[in-house]
């Protein structure tokens, strides 16, 4: 498989799909997703070993965020069974640290990064944060999360005034502060330029290794992630396919899975482009 020339993928050939009881971050058995009577995708069967770095790929509107909602417990599967760390996902569970899609803070948002991160710790609890200043463990958890993402320099500035990259780091800290086992990031790179994308991906990989987390990252473009990926989940054409990137992101594999002519093109810098999965591309082959 193609790796980015700047940071070659570490040799990691352990059988990630091996079924080892108790070590699965997420298992899905014949899961289907539907909104009302409209089925989004079905027949998703996969198992993700704990500690994997996973990308969820696929065209817009194919149901990537639907999978995220099921993993978070915000949406029940229409069929089948999905478990997170051996249990049915529960809304608000602290085992998952979550960064939602398209987070754009109001420039007038007058709350410090530090207080925003604190919300990730106990913002869902009722009542006043009484005596929070007298709880050193709470303070330490917040400071640890800020340091883990390297945001100490601007954690006391108002969120709305920070750059996209800085906000993304604080969002990550907010997801990490509750000490989750799984990090679920919905398109964390979409609002960033290429340089910041690389920085944030590197940071996520670093944190995941240090805290032995499973990372599930929804992405539009696989290229910034290639050096870290263990697994790819492809969501397209009503189906969910899972495999190692070098096995699944090939013209043959994707064409076979989706029974459609799909081309995987590599440019001379090793970047990958998938053509033919987007519904619009199929409908208008000459477009663009």
């Amino acid at each position, binding site marked *: 498989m193609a790796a980015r020339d700047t940071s070659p993928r570490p040799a990691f050939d352990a059988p990630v799909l091996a079924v080892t009881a108790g070590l699965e971050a997420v298992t899905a058995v014949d899961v289907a997703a539907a909104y009302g009577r409209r089925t989004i995708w079905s027949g998703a069967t996969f198992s993700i070993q704990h500690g994997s770095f996973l990308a969820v790929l696929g065209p817009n509107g194919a149901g990537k965020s639907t999978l995220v909602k099921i993993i978070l417990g915000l949406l029940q599967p229409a069929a089948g069974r999905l478990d997170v760390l051996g249990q049915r996902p529960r809304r608000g569970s602290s085992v998952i640290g979550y960064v*939602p899609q398209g987070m754009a803070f109001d420039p007038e948002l007058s709350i*410090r990064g530090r207080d925003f991160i604190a*919300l990730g710790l106990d*913002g*869902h609890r009722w009542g006043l944060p009484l005596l929070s200043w007298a709880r050193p463990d709470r303070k330490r958890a917040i400071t640890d999360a800020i340091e883990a993402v390297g945001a100490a320099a601007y954690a*006391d500035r108002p969120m709305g005034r920070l750059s996209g*990259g800085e906000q993304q780091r604080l969002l990550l800290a907010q997801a990490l502060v509750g000490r989750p086992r799984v990090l679920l990031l919905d398109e964390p790179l979409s609002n960033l330029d290429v*340089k910041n994308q690389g920085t944030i991906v590197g940071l996520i990989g670093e944190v995941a290794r240090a805290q032995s987390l499973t990372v599930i990252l929804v992405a539009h473009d696989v290229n910034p992630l290639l050096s870290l990926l263990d697994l790819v989940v492809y969501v397209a054409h009503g189906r969910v396919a899972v495999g190692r990137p070098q096995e699944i992101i090939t013209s043959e594999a994707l064409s076979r899975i989706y029974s459609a002519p799909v081309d995987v093109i590599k440019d001379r810098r090793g970047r990958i482009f998938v053509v033919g999965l987007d519904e619009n591309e199929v409908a208008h082959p000459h477009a663009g």
Partner: protein
Amino acid sequence: MPAEFAVLLKVTNTAPSPSWNPLDDLALMTQYEFMVHAFQAGTVVAIVAGVIGYFVVMRGSAFAAHALSHIGFAGATGAVVLGVSPVFGLLAFTVGSGAIIGALGNRIRGRDVTIGIVLAWTLGLGVLFISLYTGYATEAYAILFGEILGISDRDVAIVVLAGVPTLLVLALLYRPLLFSSVDENLAAARGVPVTGLSIGFMAVLALAVTEAVQVVGVLLIFALIVTPAAIAVRWTRRPSAAVAVATGLALLFTWIGLSIAFFSPHPVSFFITSLAFGTYLVARIGETVARYMQSLRPADVAPRASTS
């Protein structure tokens, strides 16, 4: 609108002159029962308005707060027509419309348009109710501009009875409300019932609005709910400190406004709103000047790494 002001002037047209000794002046004011009532009710209302104002500003619900009070106007005038205390009509209309606005949610783009349309209609209703009411017009003007100098000890008791539960509910909702104000998606994923919270908040806001109307009237509600909080979020970025600053400012505006009005022939509402507006203006200008001064300084700070 000279007629309205004429009515309000009547309430305060016997203006004593101040001694300029704060203690003596306070002693003089508290000799009058209506001033004691005004300070008591004003204090409770200012605390409630300051606390809830922070969330109104954080949630971007300033227009909803404003609309609630105006929708309440129709309820209040309707109650007057029916011969009931206007507080009940006010409460019914603000809580009812508050719950509906809350159910519309924070994310819906057309929310403010919907609120505006309902608002216009209820104001029309209010005008109809005023025309139907054949009695003395003071009642309607009091609802519009407040009548804190004319409230009874029973009214004070009502304000306290409504204010204390409002504060308790806000204390209970504090963290999830702040969380969903910052980002609803994130809060929902963490298990915060965002829609229920949105409805609950608007209902509490409706209660607070109903109370604040007693002091400043429906037209001037911004001065006590929105302005102190809007100043507070410019002065501090810490939520707890911002709530404290907003409450403190609302109290100061109310107390100083009441004191000035006692020694002057002009209405309290004018002084409270002017104090609020003046402080906001000073805060904005101060901020602009501070930012300008900062930009004049040589770039001694190293450019921030990894930012775009």
